[in-house]
């Protein structure tokens, strides 16, 4: 491929296998004697399990075993846990109800597993699962989070009276109250963030292989963080001790957060493999994915913003109810708290902020982090407030934002975060120029002459990525440290393997990480292999989410490279009888500055391993490891502007232009970064206009297939996203990277909704902005205009 360093638009090394059909995903794996698992799932949102009769199923062809929750609990398999402790404002710890991988007593959402069938083929397992007779006694269900807190609502867990998990707050309430007392203007809105199903195209899957002789498990699974999976499976679920459990996440077909968590199905496959003494495979179908993959978002908020006479924001008050579903998923508690309310300051200088968040159980599938996780909810709330406030006080939306921008760094917000670097005016200016903001009035008039309504909407987002400094998150309740590890192995022939705890499920690490090595040593990227996703190969790692692979994962690689470089220079200096400080590395060679003496990288690597002539006391070999723990979050930020045209006759909205100007800090491969932004924007536009995970009042999921859940397709989207970047380096990590994986999904929904509400002249619009909703609002506004 050649020497492709930092900044090169290198085509991806991993693509070869994907474009030839040679990718290896979990469902592509097989094992000798493998059985297939099919789960028996609750059709009710809330019910007592009265009895389970598996006799008919057990007699069906190919059936090996029917296993129930009672047996699972009896074998000492632990409950699923939430790994982030949140305390309510009164100091009490969150109220966590018990979640078993298969439920023996009370089911709490449609699709919850109560039993599993293991059979010789997938079809036999499915048939037999349908023949397991479960008697339920239905209970009243509750799906609305606000209603779930009311007296008399159905109760999910005895541990959580009124279904309240926690009642948490952040910020200085008295200071906020004072700001509102002195306010010249107050903007108030009720804001809903719609519930989404993440929908990576590869459904979840697991293949568990138990080795009876070694008492050892191997688990192939669709995970974004195989080491975390191993840790949780052994430390909390007691499936196997860590050294007896190997977790492999091979090629993974997208994650978007939903493959962070350790789900019941993987646990059950491991346990069932031991019980049946055969490998057990399970592959989710799409309906199961809708029913059981953790959903995202689902907030109801009331927000108030205080402005002074000069239109400076003086205070922000937010009350949010977060629906966490029927159980607390692995990181669910952190999403509506530390990943949400800490970003409510946005790009603005807001002296006083107070947020109160109530997290609530409902009879729906658990809700956890989905691309952006908390930050999209904060951005949507704040950016709709900014646009609305601008309209109310009669200022241009860009002007109100600019007036309130943070311009000096570091900037301590009133909600924990300390922003390290940024230039918010630069990204706003770039986006406004790209979309020809000044020419909008003329375009609007032209559209009006055709009977169309044009609108333009801004969104200036900020997010906290590079998750995260371990001590900081530990003090906020996290059960793990969020550092990353790397090992750089230089082979005797000078090729390099980099072992990383980051995990690629579409992000292109095999390419970008190799570019880092290529840059450092002047080696061909083909001489570099990136090894990831296997707990037997990589010692430990925290995985990929929160846009952390660059800022945290690559920083660990840089630290290991520093050590390799230092040792290689020592060896080269010794061999060439030069001073260590005179050695430079260039184009794959170690040179003595100012002379023509040089050794190739390969010669030095070989010397390290032959060890015939090393400096006194030096150990042989050229292999170094490093752990990197970030010192702060990173703060990618930017401006997105959306221009739409609405047809008032049909309510359909066309996105005419979408421009994005992002500051991601240092960029390694612009092509890959653009791809991340395209994908994020599309998911955000999907949230704004198409997607909604809807339950009816009885807790049935109405959108459990692609016939009902509207995924963005190619012709739902603008002809072209126009992107630009503006770089301010992150001072907190060696490369100055901030992260780019989530920005698109975080920043785009408010830009779309601000544009549509601008077009139709009504602010009463919730996501997704379907043609029906938009048409209804057009009826009211055109009627009002006529009167």
């Amino acid at each position, binding site marked *: 491929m050649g020497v492709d360093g930092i900044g090169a638009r290198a085509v991806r090394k991993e693509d070869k296998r994907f474009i*030839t059909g040679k990718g290896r995903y979990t469902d592509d794996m097989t094992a000798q004697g493998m059985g297939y698992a099919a789960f028996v799932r609750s059709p009710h949102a809330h019910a007592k399990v009265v009895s389970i009769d598996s006799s008919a199923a057990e007699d069906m062809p190919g059936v090996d075993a029917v296993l129930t929750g009672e047996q699972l609990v009896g074998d000492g398999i632990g409950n699923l846990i939430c790994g982030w402790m949140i305390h309510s404002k009164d100091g009490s710890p969150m109220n966590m109800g018990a979640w078993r991988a298969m439920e023996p007593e009370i089911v709490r959402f449609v699709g919850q597993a109560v039993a599993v069938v293991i059979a010789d083929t997938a079809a036999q397992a499915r048939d037999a699962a349908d023949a397991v007779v479960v008697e339920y006694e239905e209970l009243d269900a509750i799906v609305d989070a606000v209603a779930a807190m009311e007296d008399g609502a159905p109760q999910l867990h005895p541990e959580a009276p009124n279904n309240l998990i926690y009642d948490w707050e952040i910020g200085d309430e008295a200071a906020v109250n004072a700001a509102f007392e002195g306010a010249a203007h107050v903007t108030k809105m009720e804001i809903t963030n719609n519930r989404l199903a993440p929908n990576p195209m*590869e459904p979840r899957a697991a293949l568990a292989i138990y080795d009876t002789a070694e008492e050892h498990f191997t688990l192939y699974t669709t995970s974004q963080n195989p080491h975390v999976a191993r840790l949780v499976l052994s430390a909390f679920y007691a499936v196997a001790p860590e050294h007896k459990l190997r977790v492999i996440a091979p090629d993974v077909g997208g994650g978007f957060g939903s493959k962070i968590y350790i789900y019941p199905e993987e646990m059950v496959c491991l346990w069932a493999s031991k019980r049946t003494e055969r490998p057990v495979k399970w592959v989710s179908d799409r309906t199961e994915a809708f029913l059981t993959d953790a959903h995202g978002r689902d907030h109801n908020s009331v927000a108030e913003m205080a402005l002074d006479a000069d239109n400076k924001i003086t205070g922000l008050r937010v009350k949010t109810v977060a629906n966490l579903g029927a159980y607390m998923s692995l990181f669910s508690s952190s999403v509506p708290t530390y990943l949400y309310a800490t970003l409510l300051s946005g790009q603005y200088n807001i002296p006083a902020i107070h947020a109160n968040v109530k997290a609530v159980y409902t009879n729906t599938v658990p809700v956890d982090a989905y691309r952006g996780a908390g930050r999209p909810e904060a951005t949507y709330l704040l950016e709709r407030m900014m646009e609305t406030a601008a309209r109310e006080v009669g200022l241009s939306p860009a002007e109100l934002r600019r007036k309130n921008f943070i311009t000096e760094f570091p900037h301590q917000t009133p909600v924990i975060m300390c922003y390290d670097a940024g230039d918010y005016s630069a990204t706003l200016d770039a986006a406004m120029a790209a979309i020809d903001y000044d020419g909008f009035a003329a375009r609007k008039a032209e559209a009006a002459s055709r009977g169309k309504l044009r609108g333009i909407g801004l969104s200036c987002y900020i997010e906290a990525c590079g998750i995260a400094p371990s001590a900081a998150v530990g003090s906020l309740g996290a059960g793990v440290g969020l550092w990353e590890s790397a090992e750089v192995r230089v082979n005797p022939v000078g090729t390099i393997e980099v072992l990383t705890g980051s995990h690629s499920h*579409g992000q*292109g690490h095999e390419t970008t990480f190799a570019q880092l090595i290529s840059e450092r040593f002047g080696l061909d990227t083909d001489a570099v292999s990136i090894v990831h996703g296997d707990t037997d190969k990589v010692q430990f790692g925290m995985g990929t989410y929160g846009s952390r692979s660059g800022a945290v994962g690559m920083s660990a690689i840089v630290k290991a490279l520093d050590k390799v470089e230092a040792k290689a220079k020592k060896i080269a200096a010794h061999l060439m009888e030069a001073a260590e400080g005179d050695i430079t590395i260039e184009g794959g060679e170690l040179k003595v500055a100012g002379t023509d003496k040089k050794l190739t990288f390969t010669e030095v690597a070989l010397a390290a391993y032959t060890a015939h002539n090393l400096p006194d006391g030096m150990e042989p070999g050229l292999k170094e490891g490093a752990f990197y723990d970030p010192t702060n979050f990173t703060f990618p930020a930017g401006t997105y502007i959306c221009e739409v045209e609405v047809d008032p006759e049909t309510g359909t909205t066309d996105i005419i232009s979408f421009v994005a100007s992002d500051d991601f800090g240092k960029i390694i491969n612009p092509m890959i970064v653009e791809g991340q932004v395209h994908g994020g924007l599309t998911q955000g536009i999907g949230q704004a206009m198409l997607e909604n995970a809807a339950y009816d009042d009885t807790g049935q999921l109405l959108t459990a297939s692609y016939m009902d859940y509207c995924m963005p*397709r190619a012709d739902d*989207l603008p002809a072209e996203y126009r992107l630009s970047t503006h770089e301010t380096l992150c001072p907190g990590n060696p490369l100055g990277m901030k992260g780019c994986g989530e920005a698109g999904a975080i920043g785009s929904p408010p830009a779309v909704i601000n544009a549509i509400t601008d077009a139709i002249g009504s602010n009463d619009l919730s996501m997704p902005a379907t043609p029906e909703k938009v048409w209804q609002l057009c009826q009211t506004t055109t009627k009002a205009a006529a009167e």
Partner: protein
Amino acid sequence: MAHVSMVLNGKRVSGTVEDRTLLVAFIRENQGLTGTHVGCDTSQCGACVIHVDGKAVKACTMLAAQADGTEVVTLEGLAKGGTLHPVQAAFREHHGLQCGFCTPGMIMAAVDMIERHGAGNLDEATIRHELEGNICRCTGYQNIVKAIKAASDEMAGLQQAAE
């Protein structure tokens, strides 16, 4: 049970499967060709698109038994003698894939699309419309559309050069 025999990527293969076995299951499980993917259960996502007798087909909508006597090409059979098909090459060149899961169906649908419209006759709006039956969650489609357009134009150039 049904006996199925077909030419799969140029090789004659056969097998005995249950009557209800889907073509995609026959290809993946019986024949071990895992390059064709399953992304849904309602024939919406297009991850399973293959060519049956020269036409793009969602392999999850057809029984294996229905494919008896046909000629089937999957993504594994597209590259000829180690040379990538122009559509495969264009997907890599234009970053038309991220996780790679939708990619087999995307590429097979694209090859069919170019054949139906004629190389060089595709504009971006047509490509977007044609991708109605293929869902990608990663790329936002922009680079997929670019890749298909580039491949279509390149194939037109190759045809001209050959004439």
